[in-house]
């Protein structure tokens, strides 16, 4: 869980004040929190993501190398968790904000 995974921001959203975004990890897409890199990134940028949080912005070439290296080293466990948890429907964007506010 210590190794971040590089991905590309394909969408940005604001979830009641929290900067969020959809990040593409080699085809697997997940919502991620962008709060810690908010002022540095825009759609199309590459970021290193730890357990759903973008921690740093990286160049595209570095992102590709890192992803490839993680794949070669069989260290993409987190992508498996993303796939496993995708069917739980826990993506922050999967329910409209208004509906979620009702249960909070």
């Amino acid at each position, binding site marked *: 869980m210590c190794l971040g995974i590089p991905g590309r921001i394909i969408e940005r959203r604001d979830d009641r004040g929290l900067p969020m975004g959809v990040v593409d990890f080699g085809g697997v897409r997940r919502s991620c929190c962008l709060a*810690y890199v908010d002022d540095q990134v825009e759609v199309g940028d590459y970021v290193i993501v*730890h357990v759903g949080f973008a921690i*740093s912005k990286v160049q595209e070439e570095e992102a590709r190398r890192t992803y490839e290296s993680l794949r070669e*080293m069989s260290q993409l466990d987190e992508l498996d968790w993303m796939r496993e948890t995708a069917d739980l429907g826990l993506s922050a964007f999967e329910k409209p904000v208004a509906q979620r506010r009702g249960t909070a």
Partner: protein
Amino acid sequence: MKYLDEYRDAAIVRSLAARLRRTATRRWVLMEVCGGQTHTIVKQGLDELVGDAVEMIHGPGCPVCVTPLEQIDKALMLAERPDVIFTSFGDMLRVPGSDCDLQQVRARGGTVRVVYSPLDALQLAIRTPEKHVVFFAVGFETTAPANAMAVWRARELGVRNFSVLVSHVTVPPAMTALLSAPDNRVQGFLAAGHVCTVMGWSEYEPIAAQYRVPIVVTGFETVDIMEGMLMAVQQLEEGRFEVENQYVRSVTRDGTVPARHLVAQVFELVDRKWRGIGAIPRSGLGLRPEFADFDAELRFGLGDIVVDEPAECHAGDVLRGKLKPFECPAFGTLCTPSRPLGAPMVSSEGACAAYFNYRRLERRSEQPDVVAVATEQSL
């Protein structure tokens, strides 16, 4: 070693290794802190490539491995409660507690869910108001910003059915504890690149100066690690004891400032027991008093429990670098990834699992081993 031939950076790694062998006038003892680096070193045989120039000791930087047995047992107690949905990162599920693991609790009817992010656990709490959702907040400084944000958001959104079982640890106090031990052999460190991406490296400067050890902030790719080893050996040969940054493409001295800021607002330094190692003063993060409502231990009155590690598991000696995994009598026989006695055999970041996966068959040629033969035949 056989994997290295397939690796595109093999030529660079070999050239760095040759430079390292030429630079070293004696055998130096280095420790890599990060379990991800351990995995790379053992899988690619980097320690074998440098010959007698460097002995690599594998450090305690595997969050799964150092989470104390008491916290695992508390997790099991919470997961068994019918009113609780227990959520965790995937690699904690098979870590053995005193009697069983989270996977077994789930099989017996406990509600245990793997989440990718602590915000998923918070989201689950929002959508399941009739249950209480507990998230197992473990890890080093890399997961702390995420877990801090989940707690911060829970308070901000007024979510009352969410809490965290905290077992956070931090790297610098563990390095200090290792260096202070009377039988310490470590002469230099490769610091964990992604931990430093978050935290920067200023915390390591007093350690390098006080204990006269080079500390090289190092990435986790094969070339990174070999270069980090070379930089540490160059310092030792020149009598320098500084913090150097090999991983310049990711790490700055100050780290990710907004993340550090939120971690400091939600967590405070606490004494923490490390599995197999024991208590290290001010080596962990605990919730600040103003976030007590989100502390699962307080909410469910778990209190202090004291449990003993199984005697046949030598994980503590492995985590302190006293024992190589294959020197443990249980390695590969009583203890395998499918039936682990201790946490380092569970996680892909654990030293025992790395040796089991990549070095077991080499070892068999030196010393026949029934389990290894059986596994090889089944492949």
